[in-house]
Each structure stands twice: as C-alpha cells, then as structure tokens.
C-alpha cells in the first residue's frame, strides 16, 4: 500500500522539503504553479466518469440485446407453432415442422439427474475438505485440485466421454438394463451415446462448482457455533448435520442452483455424448437431445424456419436458466440464517 502512495505523496514531500532550503522567507506559493486546476484536468475527470459509466451500462446493453435478438429471431416460429412447440417433438426441416419437447425434456432430465448425483458427492467432498479428517496440507491440495479440475474445458470432457468413459461403462449399463430393464428408465439397450453417459459427464462437470461453493459456505460458519456444539458433547457428525450444515444452507443451496443453471446450459460435453436424437424416449440408455446440444448441432447448417425455431428453443433455454438463477438469488437471501 505504501508503494502505491509513493508517486503522489513522494512529490509533495520533495516540495515541502525544498521550502525551508531555498525560499524560506518567501511564500511557497510560487512553487505551486498548478494551484488552480487546469480546465483539461476537469475534462479528464468528468470524461473518465462518463466513460466508465458507459462501460458499466454495456452489461445492461448486452443483456437486453441478447434477449431482444433471440426474441425477434424466434417470433416467426412462435407465431407459427405457438405453445405446440413445447409439447411436440417433430423436428423435420423437410416438412417444416418443429417441436422441441424432446429437447426440453432432455435438458431437464439430464440436469436433474446429474444434480442428484453431484449434490451428495459435492457436499460430502466439501465436508471432507473443511473438517480435520486429514492434515490441513493434504486437504488444501484436494481443494486446489477441485478448483483446477473445474477449469477443464467441456469439449475435452466430451472427448473423454466418447472414447473412454462410455465404452468403459457400457457393460455396466448393459447389466443394469438386463436386471432392471422393467423400469422404464432402463428399458432400452445401451448402444453407445445416450442420456445416461450425458448425465454422468454433466455431474462430473458441475461437481467442482457445488464442492467449491459448499466449501466456502461451510468455512464461513462461525467457529463459535462449532465450539458450542462440541461443548455440549456433540460428535463431529452431529455437529455437522445439526449445526454446521443448517447454518451454511443458504450458500449451499445457492451453489446447487448455480450448478443447475450451468447444467441446463452446458453444451459441448453433452452434445458429444448424448446421441443427438429428437425421438422422445423415457429410457436413459437411448440417445436424446438437450436444447443446447440441438443448437450446437443444427445452428450452423440451418436456415429459414429452422433458424427461427432454434431461436425459439434458445429463448426457452434462456427463460429456464434465468428463472433458476433468479431463484438462486432469492433463495440465498431467504434462507440465510442470522447468527
């Protein structure tokens, strides 16, 4: 901090030191030619303020522009298919019929299932990192590892999913299908790319988010609450379940919803492994679609009504993710405990 002050204070120091030396009897006024701020300085000052104001406003401009562009793009499809778009799953550029039901269903089902896997794992990991089960050094390494792994691009996760994860898991999927095939979720033969591997790769992707945010929320719980619980003879598990987790619940819920938002919009890894099929099927082993994978797959080669329909699908995706993010904001405020 001192270093940063130097350029300013340093100059003044030199000046005041000079006063007694050379012109002690005179007023030091002559040393300060710039007593009156020049006009240019004022211009710079207000200009700077206006510039950064404009830059801050760019956020709003971008946000509104995104909504407007996507909305305008989808008007044609909206007026043509209306709400039927949400409930049918025809997608045929030749007959010009479009319905995004399969993609919407796929978006929601992959996100919810991946959340169901990632939430317990992520919170469990966060607890492990924040408790003194291992020495602090080791826990910090795990913690940093989790953060680094969050930085891996999703396209690489997709690549890994295609060539390593899915072939490795296919026998397991086949076994599940054989034993539990009567459950509609497992009713089809696993043939490679499909909803199930997409769910798994999505859970791997959102795990670091849930872990990191849960860890931070757990760390923020005041030490005195932990002391209080241990002081009345609680074990570690009781302390965590009854005191620490409830106190951190707002942050953790926020993290979960943030992860949900991420899962809903995640594109690359899912596109590469979900199989990209618009045929609706309840089975997790059959290929499927999500809105974002549909966009990634078709946008480059689409034209006419198809573009508009894809814009319509984008608009739906935006509304869904926006709702989730707003809910996250609201819940965090709502659930935060006073302590």
């Amino acid at each position, binding site marked *: *901090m001192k270093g*940063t*002050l130097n350029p300013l*204070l340093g100059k003044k120091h030199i000046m005041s030191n000079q006063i007694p030396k050379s012109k002690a009897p005179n007023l030091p006024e002559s040393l300060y030619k710039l007593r009156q701020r020049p006009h240019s*300085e004022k211009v*710079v*000052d207000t200009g*700077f*303020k206006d510039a*950064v*104001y404009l*830059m*801050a406003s*760019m*956020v709003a401009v971008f946000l509104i*522009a995104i909504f407007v*562009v*996507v909305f305008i*793009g989808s008007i044609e499809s909206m007026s043509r298919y209306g709400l039927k778009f949400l409930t049918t799953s025809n997608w045929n550029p030749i007959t010009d019929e479009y319905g995004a039901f399969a993609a919407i269903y796929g978006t929601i089902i992959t996100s919810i299932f991946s959340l169901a896997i*990632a939430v317990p*794992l992520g*919170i*469990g*990991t966060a607890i*492990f*990192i924040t408790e003194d089960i291992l020495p602090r050094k080791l826990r910090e390494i*795990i913690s*940093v*590892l989790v*953060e680094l*792994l969050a*930085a*891996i*691009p999703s396209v*690489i996760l*997709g*690549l890994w999913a*295609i060539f390593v994860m899915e072939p490795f898991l296919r026998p397991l999927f086949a076994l599940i299908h054989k034993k539990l095939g009567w459950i509609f979720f497992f009713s089809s033969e696993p043939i490679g790319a499909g909803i199930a591997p997409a769910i798994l790769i999505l859970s*791997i992707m959102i795990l*670091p988010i849930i872990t990191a945010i849960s860890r931070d929320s757990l760390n923020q719980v005041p030490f005195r609450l932990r002391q209080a619980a241990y002081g009345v003879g609680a*074990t*570690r*598990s*009781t302390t965590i379940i009854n005191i620490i987790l409830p106190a951190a619940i707002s942050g953790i819920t926020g993290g979960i919803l*943030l992860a949900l*938002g991420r899962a*809903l*919009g*995640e*594109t*690359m890894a899912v596109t590469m492994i979900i199989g990209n099929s618009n045929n609706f099927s309840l089975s997790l082993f059959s290929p499927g679609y999500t809105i*974002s994978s549909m*966009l*990634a797959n078709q*946008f*480059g080669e689409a034209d006419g009504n198809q573009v508009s329909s894809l*814009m319509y699908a*984008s608009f739906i*995706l935006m509304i869904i*993710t926006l709702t989730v993010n707003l809910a996250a904001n609201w819940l965090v405020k709502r659930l935060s405990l006073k302590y």
Partner: protein
Amino acid sequence: MTFNNNSRLKYKASLKRNIYNSLFTFISVVFTILSILPLILLLSYVFIKGATQINLSLLSNLPEPPGDDLLNAGGIGNALQGTIIITLIASSIAVPIGVGGGIYLAEYARNGKFASFIRFGTNVLSGVPSIIAGVFIYGIIVSTKIIFNSTYSALAGGISLSILMLPTVIKTTDEGLKLVSDDLRKGALSVGASKFLTITQVTLPAAIKPITTGIILAIARAAGETAPLIFTALFSFYWFEAPTSILEPIASLSVLIYNFALEPYEAQNQLAWAASLILVSIILIMNIITKLWARKS
C-alpha cells in the same frame, strides 16, 4: 437418573453415536474419492494419450481435412494460432469494458440503485449459457453480415467470447476495488488529487492483483470455450493472415477437438487428443499461475 452418567470416559467404538460418526467420516472420504477420481483419470488420460501425439510438426503444420489422408491428420498450428487470436480479440473488448465497468461500480456508483441493477445484470449475464452468446452473435452479426459483409469470422467469434468474459472481469474489478481501504482514497483526495488520479494512481494499483487474477481466469475460461464459436468463428484449414483473415472463419483448438472427435477417422481422433493436451496445458498453467500468485501474499 435419566442420563447415562455411569459411562466411563473411554472411547467405545460400539456406541451408536460413534458408529454414526465413523460411518459419516467414511462416507465423506468415499464421496471425495468418487468426485476427484474421474477428473484425475481424465487428466492423466489426456496427458498420456496426448503425449504420444506430440512431435515437432504438430505445432507447425496445418490440419488435413478428414478423409484426405487416412494415416496423417497433420498438425494443429493454425488452431493454436486461432485460439490465441480469438482470445486476444475477446480480451481487447472485455478487459477495458469490464475493468471500466468495475471501476464505475466500486468507485462511483457504490451502492446506488444503478449499481445494484448492474451488479444484478452481471450475475444474470454470467448465468447465460455460453451457447446463447453464440446464438446472439449469429443473429446480430453473422446472419446480418453487418461487418463488411462477412459472415463467420474471427471477429464474430471474439465478440461472442467477450460477452462470456465480461461478467467475470467486472465482478473481480468491482470486488478487488472494494477491498482497497477507504483511508487510501481519502489520503489521495486530501492532497488534492482528482477522482481520476485517485483511481488510476492509487486505488487501481492497490487492487491490481485480484483484478489481474480475475482477468487471467476469464481468459483461461474463454480459451477453452467451444459452444459460442461453432457457428460464429466456424473453422478453417488455413493459416490466419493479418489483417484480412479477421473477417474470415478461423480455426481454434476447441472447435478442432469438437469437429475431429466426431470424425470417423482414427487419425483425426488422435489429433483431437493432441489438441486437448495443448489446450489443457495452457489453461492449467494459467490457473496454477494465479493460484501460486495468490498464495504468495
């Protein structure tokens, strides 16, 4: 006596609460292993598989179009070049706007209505799925040919990435500046510095570390993004040539991985692994640098 006061102080593993406690610890250990293992497996696979593909010509050659040569898919030279160029374009838009916006929030608006609206907007923007940024740029630039009649281009790709970088840069600037002690501002103002001088010479330098960290992380994230590029920057099998290529489609590592992973040809798949190794290395190095840097203080 309703309490079990006769219990000795010795640890009894058979006690219900101790069983629960051990079970709880066990579960959290298992969960930690389960959540870390796939990612470690993935990283090691990328490194092993990618390392076998690394050779001198990898970075100097152009990729071969799939199917041309079944044994040799060429190199990733133009893709690496393209990733750097697109990221540079994105940064040159997002960094000034983001830092400026962050300065406005932290230094001028503080907690006013406008500031909370922009902060809220930043949160919403960071929650917008990355592919939507691509759809937006496609709708406003690519399909309208608004920029010198060009469609898919390096510029369009860079702009779509900048939208994704912007919220991170604003947030870290805003938060970094908020951490700067108010005494420092008062000190500068009290010696007659203007607000502009106070910010540029005192508060911004004091917050330079968190801001740079945030920028590096935003760049690292942008470098790995694929979704916004596939229908804005598209892909190219040729080198980038300044300045005309800026309005033409451009290759990038991430789109190369995506395209070549889905090709039925083995050679192209292998090249995707090599590109993954390079991309992951760049991103991890940037992340590790920020981590080490943060630790130093």
